[in-house]
């Protein structure tokens, strides 16, 4: 027979009251878990979708420039000492601290070619990386092979070329393998081919003009990554497409703040339910507490019994609250998101939910426990 036995037996006896307290904390914890795991799942889903927006870091060669002014009027500038980026140097991006956040690196070599009397820009790209970097591309036909090219919609119209049309570029015979559907961007005016093909045409083997990097995840440290890539590629200028990143982060932050606010409110209500129920329980058991005190229980023993009861109910509520929250999230994501969104068991969230439940149960029961301990044993016995 221990204080724990007394607490457990009382809980078993007062199932309705224990159930009410359990429900209060359980609803709070389940709501919190549902909201947070829903946000996590949505964040993952949103990130996944946002990644489809493509690159958010640009790597271009470093150049020195001189601003020219005549008579106080700026007439532009002149670039000089243009450095080149070696294709093999891009491998260093995989060595940066946040390499895990890099979804794709797309090297690009650019040059002007003349086709049927028109000067157009030819871009040599990595078509594998472009699937991540430019997921909105829709190609009629197929991606180019060794001697194939892909035409932007405007370029195809201006050059009057169709899928299968041959053309000669710098004495190399190429064939149009596909035409890009209109993107509304500069890509519509470009002609694309494989990186190695373009490098051969321009005589720039192993060199690139620029590179695009797709890096995004929840709270991805884009600024840090820019610094890290700059360190890895000293000859390159690395720029973050801040606007995109910031708006993505702000959206996620708003979601998180909202879920925390709602969770706090629901948990506060749960805590109040525990407080009121435990106060009622202490009042109902005034006589019993009087007996405990009369036979030599210290105030601290009474406090321990009350807190043990609250802690036990809260622990059970924490476990079931997490499981119910997880289940509710799995149901909710089916309605809130398209496609398969994973809602995995999160040990950190589970531990947090359990700890928070126990904490709320115990903190809310401190006042009723003190009240019970402060009962005058003589007065308490008179109430029987």
């Amino acid at each position, binding site marked *: *027979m*221990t*204080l724990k*036995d*007394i607490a457990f*037996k*009382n809980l*078993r*006896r007062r199932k309705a009251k224990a159930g009410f307290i359990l429900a209060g904390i359980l609803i709070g914890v389940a709501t919190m878990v549902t909201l947070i795991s829903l946000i996590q799942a949505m964040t993952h889903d949103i990130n996944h979708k946002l990644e489809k927006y493509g690159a958010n870091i640009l790597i271009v060669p470093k150049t020195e420039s001189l601003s020219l002014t005549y008579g106080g009027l700026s007439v532009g500038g002149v670039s000089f000492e243009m450095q080149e980026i070696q294709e093999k140097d891009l491998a260093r991006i995989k060595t940066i601290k946040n390499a895990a956040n890099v979804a794709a690196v797309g090297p690009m070599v650019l040059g002007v070619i003349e086709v049927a009397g028109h000067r157009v820009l030819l871009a040599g790209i990595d078509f594998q990386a472009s699937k991540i970097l430019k997921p909105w591309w829709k190609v009629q036909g197929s991606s180019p092979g060794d001697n194939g090219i892909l035409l932007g919609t405007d370029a195809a119209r201006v050059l009057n070329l169709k899928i299968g049309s041959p053309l000669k570029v710098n004495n190399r015979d190429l064939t149009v393998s596909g035409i890009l559907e209109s993107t509304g961007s500069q890509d519509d005016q470009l002609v694309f081919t494989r990186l190695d093909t373009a490098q051969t045409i321009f005589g720039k083997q192993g060199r690139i003009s620029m590179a695009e990097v797709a890096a995004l995840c929840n709270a991805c440290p884009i600024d840090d990554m820019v610094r890290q890539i700059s360190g890895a590629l000293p000859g390159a200028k690395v720029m973050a497409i801040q606007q995109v990143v910031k708006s993505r982060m702000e959206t996620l932050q708003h979601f998180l703040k909202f879920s925390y606010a709602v969770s706090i409110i629901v948990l506060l209500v749960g805590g109040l339910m525990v407080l009121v129920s435990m106060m009622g329980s202490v009042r109902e058991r005034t*006589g*019993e507490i009087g*007996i*405990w*005190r*009369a*036979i*030599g*229980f*210290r*105030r*601290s*023993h009474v406090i321990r019994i009350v807190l043990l009861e609250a802690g036990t109910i809260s622990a059970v509520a924490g476990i079931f609250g997490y499981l119910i929250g997880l289940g509710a999230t799995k149901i909710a994501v089916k309605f809130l998101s398209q496609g398969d969104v994973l809602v995995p068991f999160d040990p950190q969230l589970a531990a947090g939910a359990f700890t928070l439940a126990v904490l709320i149960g115990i903190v809310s029961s401190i006042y009723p426990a003190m009240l019970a301990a402060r009962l005058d*044993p*003589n007065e308490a*016995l008179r109430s*029987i």
Partner: protein
Amino acid sequence: MSYIKAENLMKVYGQGEAAVTALRGVSFGLESGDFISIMGESGSGKSTMLSIMGALNTPSSGKFLVEDIDVYGLKQEQRADFRREFVGFIFQSFNLIPYLTVVENVMLPLTTLNIKSSQKRALALDALGRVGLSKKADRLPSQISGGEQERVAIARAIVNQPPMLLADEPTGNLDSKTGAEIMDLLRQLNEQGMTVIMVTHNIECARYARRLLRMTDGMMHEENPVNLIAQAECPAGRVGAALMPAGGVA
């Protein structure tokens, strides 16, 4: 030197015009192994006296000493320890915890002691054996009779072998036959060395005591228990109270 000593105990409930004086300077001394009966009309202050002796009710003034320990000079938690070590309570309405079995109720005073559960259970079963209830150890209080509940209350009071046993109307809720059995049990415990202090309305029960203290309007004086009307058995408290002659017993 008395084992239990009360020095000019005063107890006033409430303040100002609503103040009620329950004890008016009560002093007495009791020896270890005494069997004391405290009698008096309702409102005479006997329950207040018992609660003060049980370290449950702080007197307004005066001192109460047990083994030279100034009980009300102790801090709250020390007083709880004092109750556990020195006092066994037997309440009129038994005051058993309804959701604990008989043996668990008896084990209650041992709950906070740092001994093994098996040892606690052995001590509780031993106490139940002394009141003849070993076979009903695992029943709930609601599954035994009133007399048996009183025996459980006695077993709970003696399980940690306190030197003092305080009983508040121990036969108040029992029929006369069961009441007599309980009184016999208290006498046996007293014969085994326990100091028994009993508050009762009942003359017949009071006869079991070796000393009789009568409370009248918050004052206490000693009477000779031999002068009490002899009866063959100890009936329930209320009947006994009605038999008591007006003005007390000389």
